[in-house]
């Protein structure tokens, strides 16, 4: 696990966000703040975060509940926008993109794996796995299905292509979710507690799959409460109270 010194925010609102680096890095967050309005109260989820992740790394993001782990993931995937600061992924300024542009970018550049799988219940495993390609309108239908089939075989579900999510176990559903995240062959795969809803054996199998994908060149970024799992990553970024305290 490599270490890297991360510049911390010294005084709120006074720093100029650093200019994005030329791209040896895949992900760059500079001076990122995120404030959520909850009724009459403002909640500062991130307080001036700077973070750089290189291509091909496997990074775990850890921290207590409410520390801002998921917020960082959401900003990196364009699911949320920063209140201030810049977010650059693979040379693209996500904070400057519209929602439509972000949706299209995500479909072609990022694979996301959620804790609760989030498969569409009325689509089969194969149909769930091919969905991003359908949205991106990439290739012909036959080619898309071939790719989805290949990804499902990669995750060990070649024999359950026509099964609905309700007919699959938790582990199998998560594999489908991983297969879906690979649909557009993205450089980056992001997981928010990807093994959080699985038993230890299945969780271990899932993590091995992610490790294999990392060995094949994919950048993996995942949030986890599990310290043992985090320890298997190349690098651990620790967040507390919206600030990166260690990396």
């Amino acid at each position: 696990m490599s270490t890297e010194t991360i510049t911390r925010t010294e005084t709120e609102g006074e720093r100029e966000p650093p200019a994005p680096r030329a791209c040896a890095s895949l992900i760059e967050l500079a001076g990122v703040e995120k404030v959520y309005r909850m009724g009459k109260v403002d909640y500062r989820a991130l307080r001036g975060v700077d973070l750089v992740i290189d291509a091909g790394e496997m990074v775990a993001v850890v921290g207590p509940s409410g520390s801002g782990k998921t917020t960082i993931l959401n900003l990196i995937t364009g699911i949320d926008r920063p209140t201030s600061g810049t977010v650059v992924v693979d040379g693209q300024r996500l904070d400057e993109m519209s929602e439509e542009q972000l949706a299209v970018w995500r479909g072609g550049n990022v694979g996301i794996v959620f804790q609760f799988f989030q498969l569409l219940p009325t689509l089969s495993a194969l149909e769930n796995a091919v969905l991003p390609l359908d949205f991106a309108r990439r290739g012909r239908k036959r080619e898309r299905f071939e790719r989805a089939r290949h990804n499902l075989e990669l995750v060990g579900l070649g024999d359950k292509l026509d099964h609905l999510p309700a007919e699959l176990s938790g582990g199998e559903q998560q594999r489908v979710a991983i297969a879906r995240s690979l649909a557009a062959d993205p450089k980056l795969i992001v997981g928010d507690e990807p093994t959080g809803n699985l038993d230890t054996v299945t969780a271990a199998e899932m993590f091995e799959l992610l490790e294999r994908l990392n060995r094949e060149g994919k950048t993996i970024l995942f949030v986890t409460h599990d310290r043992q799992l985090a320890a298997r990553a190349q690098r651990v970024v620790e967040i507390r109270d919206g600030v990166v305290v260690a990396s």
Partner: protein
Amino acid sequence: MVSALMRKSVTDLSRRRSRTFFAVGTLALAVASIGIFAMPTLIDRSMQAEVAAGKLPDLTVFTSPLVLDRAHLAALGAVPNVRAVEPRSFFEGRVYIGSRRAPAYVEGVPDFASQQADVVHVASGAAPGRGEVLTDLQNANQGLLDVGAGETVRVIAADNSLQRLRVSGEGRNLNGGQDVTSDNVVVLYATPETVAALSGVPGYESLAFRLADARPAAVASTLAAVRRELVGTPGFTGFTWLPEVRAPGDWPGKEDVQKFSDFFYVITVLALLSAFVLIANTLTTLVAEQTSEIGMMKAVGGRRRQITGVYVRTALLLGALGTVVGIGLGIALSNVFVRYLGSTFFAIDVAFGVDARVLAVSVLVGLLGPILAALPAIRRAVRVPLREALEATGSAVGSQDAGDRLLRRVRFLPRTAQIGLRNVGRRRRRSFATALMVALAVGNLLAVLGLAAAVTDVTHANWRDHGEDLKLTTESERPLDAGGLQLVRSTPGVAEVEPMFDAEITLAGEEGYVWAVRQATMFRYHIADGRWFTPAEEQARARVAVVERSIARATDTKVGDTIRIETPVGPVALRVIGIASNLQENGTVLFVPRATMREVLHGTPTRADDYWIRTTSDDHGLIDRTTTSLEDRLTAAGYEVGTEITYVGEADNVASNRTITTSIAVLGLLIVAISMVGLANAMTMSVIERTREVGILRTIGARSRDVRRIFAVESLVLGLAGWLLGIPLGYLLDHVLVWLMKEVVNVDVPFTFPLGNVAVALVGTIVLALLVTLLPIRRAVRFRPGEALRYA
């Protein structure tokens, strides 16, 4: 301090504003439609006020013209039980409307400023002086005669001279206005001197009495006393017509308004039904998606009755909100309808009013309806086992049942369309209820369009069957002789003359008519079965008849049967040689050779011939001029004739039918509106439920148009399912409406179900299904994925 459970009942509504808004809106529409039942009461209330203000008589007697002085009138006023007496004179003649003549009454009012009964109100301008008339407001309202103060009306006096009378203003009288509406006759009011100048005969021909006691026994004895008082008055030889007795509470046109209202009630019930299906749907969904919350409440000690109470209170709150809005809307709706009826049929301004009984029913329905609608769902939800309830996700999962497998087979559509299609199967009950609502709208639309088409078609068809441009009617005392006929034939504009006559008969207890016509008649008959009579049969005066289909069906008469009709001379046997599909006189006409009927009725006092006349062109101006010429020439030669112009009769008929069909269409649209609210409601809930799912779709690359397409397809599928279900429903409803037209409004129309309307309904359903989803989908795509994923 409010309990947590009470607070939950409130926040369940305040947190889901869109759904609450829709549910309240729908309930309000349902409660508002109950307001329609207030119509008869409101209009009756206004009419009773009019009866009082207009001093409508309880008893009216008719005599030959009597010259009555003040002493006579005072003596009549002193008859026991008489509170007031008002004498009137009449002239029945014709007025010119453009170059056409139309029938008219001119009523003589002794003193406009001090009328004792049957008041003619001066609505605008001034009371008429000598040589002036007041035109009834309904003359213009009904499109008969539109003249204002200062203009001139040309009236043909009894001596055939043309009198130009200045219009002093517009007047309003209940009985006069009703005459305009029901008899299509122009009604004018004048002084008795003006009427005498027109008729050539001075004196009063009617006496209108207001009585202290209007019960039948009292009226009868008052009538006898009036008769005794009039005996000895110069010119009195008895009453010339049956006296008119107005039952307490009755007013002119009341029966027609009641029939109109009865028809409305049927449509209102359909609207209520639609609305309650929608409310049940809404509340069922509201409760069903709270299954996990119900589980949580049970887990922390909530008992079934307590949990039931939470949702009953929610339903009650919804009901209260909907009732308040609905009552306001219902009062407005009923008053709008009643004002329309009042101004159209009675030329009165109906005062704003509220029917307390209908209000009470509205409150009861509005409060209890949602509770009753929600109870089955609440019962189901509280009985779900605890573990299952806590694990409920709120959004149904896919399954392998036949329906879902069928939907999954549809692979040729784009993926987004497939998702939308399969979403329909996820909430079966709600999808079915939504489709049912659309089906009610489609069915109702098809039925209403079918009925309107039938009414319009039959009206035009009936009139198109008439080959004559005008009909000349003669008085039986002096029928047209050869000289008269020659006058008719030689009148410029006359192309063809056909003598015919009609008589009332009964066949197997059914009332009908015989039209005695030529074999080569200008009437356009349509033979459905059998044939028309031949020249040989006409020559031989054969006892044959062609029977219209309606009366044939009613009496089970077929070609070849020998029927016996009851005529003024007794029963007559006729052989049925044909069935005609025409619908004259509601389809109750038997066509018989004219020579045959003359022979049958020989030796008895019979009607003289009427004459169907075809003019040299169908130009309305020429028809009017020819009619005027005929009247002038024949009257000058001493013949008493009347005329009926076909195109005028057709226009009147179409106009009156249009009122019926427009009213039906307006209420039909109410049902369509309710159903579209239902569809919008279902789509809004669908979008709200799938907010997180939309977020997921956006995270894996779905664009706004992909999301829009998913929900648009879902809405379209629900709409199309409703359209399919609506076709047989519409077919049934059309039959019901046609039956109602016959039974309630006494208009016989054939059943028609144009397939073109099915296509119109399809286009309408597609357009509306897409329109109602615009707002909910906009909401769905506006959410950022982060917000959507956090949505709970």
